[in-house]
């Protein structure tokens, strides 16, 4: 069973074809980097993989189930993007607690404490998200995606807005996760994906394998 399978996926918005016959797969413990220019279709791939969008044609499977249809499979997915998906009026802790409750996370308080420590968020845990800088919000968003210890982690340009130190710390942590879960790491920077198992390049709505 693959962690993620895209089979001849086609997605269009109005008359604009964003993805055209996209086929690729990610094995259970594979770390795949994805790069591409702006408007190449990377975010649409991430959204389809996470169940946010339904393809117009083709089949998307996450652990053999359709993510846009079968909401239970989303328990195995962690998704973070440049849109933080955080509630501005809730504190950092309340945001993580809320999402933890939706994912039925066991030992949610310990898990939150671990993530706060990992992303250096302890000092701001009781601050409302609206009072945080972009970089802090991004850290909370990544922590949110890791709350449920996902089997498939989809990260879409999440390092945007992080300072150099935290970005490096996060990348180190990410590569520590290598061989423990399937990871689709979407970025603009070649330097961030040099240690991936495989690199996929997205160009004009199509995907190409790229040599490392």
């Amino acid at each position, binding site marked *: 069973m693959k962690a993620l399978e895209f089979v001849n996926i086609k997605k269009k918005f109005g008359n604009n074809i964003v993805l055209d016959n996209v086929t690729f797969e990610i094995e259970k413990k594979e770390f795949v980097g994805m790069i591409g220019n702006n408007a190449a279709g990377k975010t649409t791939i991430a959204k389809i993989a*996470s*169940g*946010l*969008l*339904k393809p117009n044609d083709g089949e998307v499977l996450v652990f053999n189930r359709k993510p*846009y*249809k079968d*909401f*239970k*499979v*989303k*328990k195995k*997915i962690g*998704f973070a993007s440049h*849109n933080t*998906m*955080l*509630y*501005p*009026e*809730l504190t950092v802790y*309340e945001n993580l607690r*809320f*999402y933890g*409750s*939706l*994912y*039925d996370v066991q030992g949610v308080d310990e898990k939150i404490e671990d993530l706060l420590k990992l992303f250096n968020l302890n000092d701001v845990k009781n601050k*409302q998200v609206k009072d945080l800088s972009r970089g802090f919000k991004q850290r909370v968003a990544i922590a*949110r995606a890791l709350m449920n210890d996902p089997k498939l982690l989809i990260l879409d340009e999440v390092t945007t807005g992080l300072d150099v130190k935290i970005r490096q710390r996060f990348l180190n942590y990410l590569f520590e996760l290598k061989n423990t879960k399937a990871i689709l790491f979407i970025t603009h920077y070649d330097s961030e994906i040099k240690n991936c198992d495989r690199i996929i390049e997205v160009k004009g709505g199509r995907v190409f394998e790229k040599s490392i």
Partner: protein
Amino acid sequence: MRKVFEIAKKDLKIEFRSKGTINFMILFSLIVSFMFSIAIPKNVVNDVALPLLLLVFIFVGVLGYSRAFLKEAEMETLDGLKVSPISPSTILVGKIIYNCILIILIEMTILPIFFALFNLKINFILLFASITIGNLAFVTVISSLSVLVIKSRARELLMPIIAFPISFPVISSMIVVMNSLTFGQLNLDPLIFISLYSAMMLTVSILVFDYLFVE
């Protein structure tokens, strides 16, 4: 069911911190009630007060209930709910419960003021119960419809256009109830009809919501 309450609890927490919807709904109800109380001649107050009260709640509902979904869409947090392992109907029921609590709080604030302004001699408990049943039906209809208008640029205008025809059975039945209350009686038949209509709308919404929710 626990996740339904988590969503409603989260929305209430956000609302009590930002007060973005409840304050506006209460203020709007007060302004309209005051205007009606000044504009309506004393000799016809008893005949028209309750239908006007109904009108206040219809206005407030159409403008306010859809905020539960629209706010999530504006803050881009709806995606966070969509990627979570919860069924779309769980989100819908969570929003309905949140709106129900909101409108009950507004009723508790507005009804005594409305009573005082119009000097009404009607059983308060019966009126409160009747208005609550009618409002719960509006909440169900408008919460379910609001997901349809999320992507529209003219969503605030589109909502009443969609909501009024679908709410028509509730509105016309509520007018019958208000009429009966004016004459000191309570007509239970329309209230039973409204309850059944709400249940039917909720069932239909839950059945089709999964399809509406995925883009």
